[in-house]
């Protein structure tokens, strides 16, 4: 099989915040009934995480699970394992109404870190990013300027962003422009 590469091959930009494309990430879209015990067990087996609360992400050593909608989760796993995890999910959920699809190659992942990270995101997304309003573990699907995206904040105050691979270059340019050294607003500082 050919060697998989991420959309921007790890491009990075340092300005008000550090913008980085984080390379290949394993992502599985899983739809089903969150309240079902079998579904919860399958999610746990696949990632080591519990099904997250509304608009939250749960993170464990092996992976993470994000709340996408009332019947959809995004499972984040190691890229190399995504195919195998998808197969085992399908096996675990054989008797249940569900859908598990490996979407790793359809996506691009970015991080935005640094003191002005909140401000950089706030410039491009219609989300309240005041420190009390968006906290580590929160997950949000929204738009970044003109493209759909989802993001979350981890315990180290780093924002992680996922978007479609086809708009990866747009996303990188957008975040880099928002993080331009002379573009400081200082709204959260």
């Amino acid at each position, binding site marked *: 099989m050919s060697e998989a590469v991420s959309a921007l091959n790890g491009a990075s930009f340092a300005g008000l915040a550090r913008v980085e494309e984080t390379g290949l990430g394993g992502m599985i879209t899983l739809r089903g009934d969150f309240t079902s015990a079998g579904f919860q067990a399958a999610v746990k087996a696949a990632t080591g995480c519990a099904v997250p609360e*509304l*608009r939250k992400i749960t993170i464990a050593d092996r992976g993470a699970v994000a709340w*996408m*909608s*009332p019947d*959809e989760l995004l499972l984040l796993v190691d890229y190399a394992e995504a195919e195998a995890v998808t197969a085992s999910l399908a096996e675990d959920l054989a008797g249940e109404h569900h859908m598990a699809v490996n979407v790793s190659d359809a996506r691009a992942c970015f991080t935005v870190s640094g003191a002005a990270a909140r401000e950089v995101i706030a410039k491009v997304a*219609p989300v309240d990013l005041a420190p009390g309003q968006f906290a580590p573990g929160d997950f*949000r*699907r*929204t*738009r970044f300027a003109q493209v*759909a995206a989802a993001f979350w904040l981890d315990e180290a105050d780093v924002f992680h962003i996922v978007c479609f691979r086809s708009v990866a270059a747009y996303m990188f340019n957008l975040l880099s422009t928002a993080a331009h050294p002379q573009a400081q607003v200082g709204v959260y500082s």
Partner: protein
Amino acid sequence: MLILQCPYCGVTAEETELHAGGEAHLKRFGPGSSDDDFHDYLFMRENPRGIHLERWRHVSGCGKWFHAARCTQTLEVFGTYSAQTTEPPQQIKDAISAKRPGWSWRDVSG
């Protein structure tokens, strides 16, 4: 700016994160219906100045369709509610009645 709360994910979403889906609670007339019913289903829409019930989709968020009750004249929002219903729930009707006593919309009234 119109701001609606998505009843599925709880996000207070502003207009740019949403997509308008037209009038709410349309009853479909399909094959076998009379020409008049089909014509009305296809073309006849409310266009009120005042109370309006609409469909919206949280397109950049959780992707779900929902309903909203609002005033087209003042942009006041009375509430949002689930898409899995053929008429507004009582609490939405009450919220409208509290502000606009005697209101009606199609065959719905407080």
